[in-house]
């Protein structure tokens, strides 16, 4: 059976189901569009509500939503690529997007811009971020940055004042400050002040920038040196030894885990966790105490490390049944005020200026924290690096894996650092 035949068959079968379910004439149903994203309960709830709004406004297009946790998302997408049945619209992140583009799984949007797809009110920086070799591939939903989220009640209980010049300056504190404050919180509340980022690649990537080095050199080789890797792990070792973090083996058990429900601030095992800024809203949904937002810690030199980058993109896939309808849906997803009103800031600060203005009066407490965070970090972040080369994803997972032996004290830091860099080199050479 050819692809086309199966599509027609599935489309027809879908129409029959829709017909029996809704009692409408089959042919008035028109096109079926599938939207697939990775999510959390909060995001899923909002996105399904958005889809309902779209379906009501566009009776001739039926969008159906599919969602999975981040850990399983790309696995499923991979099998769908193999089967030639990727959903029409998929969510992508800055990390892996470029591998999908390079491999042709995601197709350019240029033909639809100005027709079914309206990007006239999208920030130029967001459009640039989704453009590769002069072709526009990926529609940025919102902006994102690295964020430390902290339990304000625990900070308060430990008597830590917050603000510029206070004990804890959320936009200008060092690793030494963190070790000190973290230990103080542990002392006062019994909860570790901060999670241990020894195996956290996001933090490590900031640290590389804070050392004034690019993560990938011009020629695609890895930028971090033996000294930088050693210093990073030693810094966290000092924090651990100061008593500011959970025990090493406990952190080791969480290496590479990306579930919001496993965050220290959510499980109550740490007062500070480290996330992407758009995850604040989802995390706050799981915690009663109000969460505060801060940048990642810095070195005494205070060189910017975090970047502002697109949080997520919506992309059109090679397998889309009806690109016209799919791009119309994508367009509404980032422009329609009713739909974006439901999405709020859960996928980052919207790239459409009108949407931002419309959202302002309706923000929840967590969303307001998020907006204030973005205002505060302007000018304090590093420039967006070029897209990572292929293999970078594997380097990241290797980092998380080998860092566990630092947490368990199995090998010396210099040994593990040497091992990691050797593996990173091999991965990039093989990719």
């Amino acid at each position, binding site marked *: 059976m050819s692809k086309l035949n199966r599509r027609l068959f599935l489309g027809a079968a879908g129409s029959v189901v829709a017909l029996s379910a809704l009692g409408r004439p089959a042919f008035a149903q028109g096109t079926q569009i599938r939207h697939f994203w990775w999510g959390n309960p909060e995001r899923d709830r909002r996105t399904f509500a958005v889809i309902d709004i779209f379906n009501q406004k566009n009776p001739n297009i039926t969008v159906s939503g599919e969602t999975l946790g981040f850990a399983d998302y790309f696995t499923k997408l991979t099998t769908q*690529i*193999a089967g030639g049945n990727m959903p029409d619209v998929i969510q992508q992140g800055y990390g892996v997007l470029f591998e*999908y583009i390079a491999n042709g799984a995601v197709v350019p949007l240029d033909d639809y811009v100005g027709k079914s797809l309206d990007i006239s009110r999208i920030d130029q920086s967001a459009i640039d971020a989704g453009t590769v070799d002069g072709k526009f591939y990926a529609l940025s939903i919102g902006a994102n940055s690295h964020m430390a989220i902290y339990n304000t009640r625990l900070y308060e209980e430990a008597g830590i004042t917050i603000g510029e010049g206070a004990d804890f300056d959320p936009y200008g504190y060092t690793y030494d400050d963190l070790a000190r404050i973290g230990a103080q919180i542990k002392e006062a509340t019994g909860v570790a002040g901060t999670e241990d980022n020894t195996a956290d690649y996001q933090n490590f990537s900031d640290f590389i920038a804070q050392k004034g080095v690019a993560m990938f050199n011009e020629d695609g080789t890895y930028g971090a040196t033996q000294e930088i890797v050693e210093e990073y792990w030693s810094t966290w070792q000092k924090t651990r030894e100061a008593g500011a973090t959970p025990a090493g083996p406990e952190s080791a*058990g969480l290496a590479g885990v990306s579930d919001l429900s496993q965050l220290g601030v959510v499980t109550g095992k740490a007062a500070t966790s480290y996330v992407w800024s758009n995850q604040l809203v989802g995390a706050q949904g799981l915690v009663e105490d109000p969460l505060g937002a801060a940048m990642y810690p810095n070195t005494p030199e205070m060189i910017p490390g975090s970047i502002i980058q697109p949080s997520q993109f919506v992309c059109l896939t090679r397998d889309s049944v009806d690109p016209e309808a799919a791009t119309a849906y994508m367009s509404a997803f980032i422009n329609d005020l009713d739909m974006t009103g439901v999405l709020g800031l859960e996928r980052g600060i919207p790239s459409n200026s009108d949407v931002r203005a419309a959202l302002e009066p309706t923000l929840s407490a967590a969303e307001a924290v998020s907006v204030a965070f973005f205002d505060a970090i302007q000018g304090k972040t590093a420039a967006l690096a070029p897209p990572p080369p292929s293999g970078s*994803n*594997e380097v990241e997972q290797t980092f998380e894996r*080998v860092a566990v032996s630092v947490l*368990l004290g199995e090998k010396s830091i210099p040994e593990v650092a040497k091992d990691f860099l050797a593996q990173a080199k*091999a991965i990039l050479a093989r990719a």
Partner: protein
Amino acid sequence: MEKFFRRNFAGYAFLSPWLIGFFLLAIGPILASLYLSFTKYNIVRPPQWIGLDNFVYMFEFDDRFKKALQVTFTFVVISVPAKLIFALGVAMALDKGIRAIGWYRALFYLPSILGGSIAVAILWRQLFNYDGVINGILRLFGGDGPYWLADPKYSLWTLIVLAVWQFGSPMLTFLAGLRAIPQELYEAAEIDAAGPVRKFFAITVPLLAPVIFFNLVLQMIEAFKSFSGAFIISGGSGAPLDSLLFFTVYLYEEAFSYLRMGYASALAWVLLVIIAAFTAIAFWTSKYWVHYENERG
């Protein structure tokens, strides 16, 4: 030929759903995977023929491949005998004719039905967490349990225990085997003043040898292919420190995390050869210790 066809048509017709499924869903993918093992294939791009490169890389440069073999062999060598001994022990206890034996059989078999499921693996993760039930019990007795899952020294043991816990299916086979041993032999041995140990090694084990052999081969193959427990407990990556990097977990990671389908196919064929070799060895050695009643020797 025509006669053959006419005579067997109905049979083949009734078999056809299975035959079609077999050729389309089994033979087809097997041949495709053999072909892909000689290619570089990332799913999106067409496969690219690279000859033996995947295998050369695997044996010469791939340290994680070696680690995966080591983990898998350790698991097989420890979990299979442990499970069989445990299963035999329980079967012998049940064979003594306790009341409500059917109920016990069902109860002991239950873990084997649930065993491969994701839910049980997640449950296992909860049990062995640092704050989990196992350490809670240890704390009751004043001990402080280790980080079972985060410490590579212990993580594999939690999976071995999980495997042994699923002793139900070999246990049932043992039970059937034990029932088939004539009681007169034991009675005769008792008259000759044989103790329980002597009876076990002189009567039970030799007469049960075919069943032991059957269970050994089946459980060994199962253990080599074991996946879901390690996958769930290690979060899909073989963590901590690759101590749970079962061969199948590594294969999955190469295929679905790094999109190296060609390499993953090559890994799958290596696993097939390993399992075939071990099964062949088991059959070859069985000549020396497995005797069947109807054999003339």
